[in-house]
């Protein structure tokens, strides 16, 4: 698809600003999100290409603004719901619970 992910040749996205160094995971959640790819791939049922396509279908503004592993989270969400491992209702409820400090 001709989505926001297909970036080759685009102008206006700003400087690269490579830092002198950075940790592999900048925050703990990035490591968990990274590890969940292997953790979910083994049971969920998605293919790597399907996972990539779910990222491509993200809201374009969110795609550009979100940290990298947030792309993976969107794809996990889509695939886990699609394959019936979780429902969007139980995920929403769990997000609310965590956001309110309940867990």
């Amino acid at each position, binding site marked *: 698809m001709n989505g926001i992910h297909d970036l*080759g040749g685009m102008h206006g996205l700003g400087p690269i600003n490579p830092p002198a160094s950075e940790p592999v995971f900048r925050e703990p959640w990035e490591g968990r999100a990274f590890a969940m790819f292997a953790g979910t791939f083994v*049971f969920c049922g998605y293919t790597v*290409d*399907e996972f990539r396509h779910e990222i491509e279908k993200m809201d374009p503004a969110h795609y550009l603004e979100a940290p990298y592993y947030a792309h993976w989270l969107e794809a996990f969400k889509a695939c886990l719901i699609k394959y019936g491992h979780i429902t969007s209702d139980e995920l929403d409820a769990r997000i609310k619970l965590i956001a309110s400090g309940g867990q």
Partner: protein
Amino acid sequence: MLLTPDIVPAVTSTGATARVAANVAPRFRVGDQILVNNIHPTTHTRLPAYLRGKRGVIERDHGVFAYPEHHAHHLPEKPQHCYAVRFTARELWGSAVNSRDTLVADLFDDYMELR
């Protein structure tokens, strides 16, 4: 299956190749001059938009791989050759760029035609 700590080393050191042991004839040979198809699928593709309609040369045949277009949507397998295809920077970006510079992209049989 459940990913457990004891199998993590095997998972990371083995991975999962997309290479397919299928006897599929290549549509192109090294040195062939190709034209990239001007296609705009709304489904998954690994063909970047900036290469569509451009002229390149087959530089290397990587062998046979699963076709991501089909793999993404659980369509019947269509394994095919994937090639390193070389383009001049000027073919892609016009006369203002350095005449020596080139770009190589990995493209599948179905992405191209002979020219």
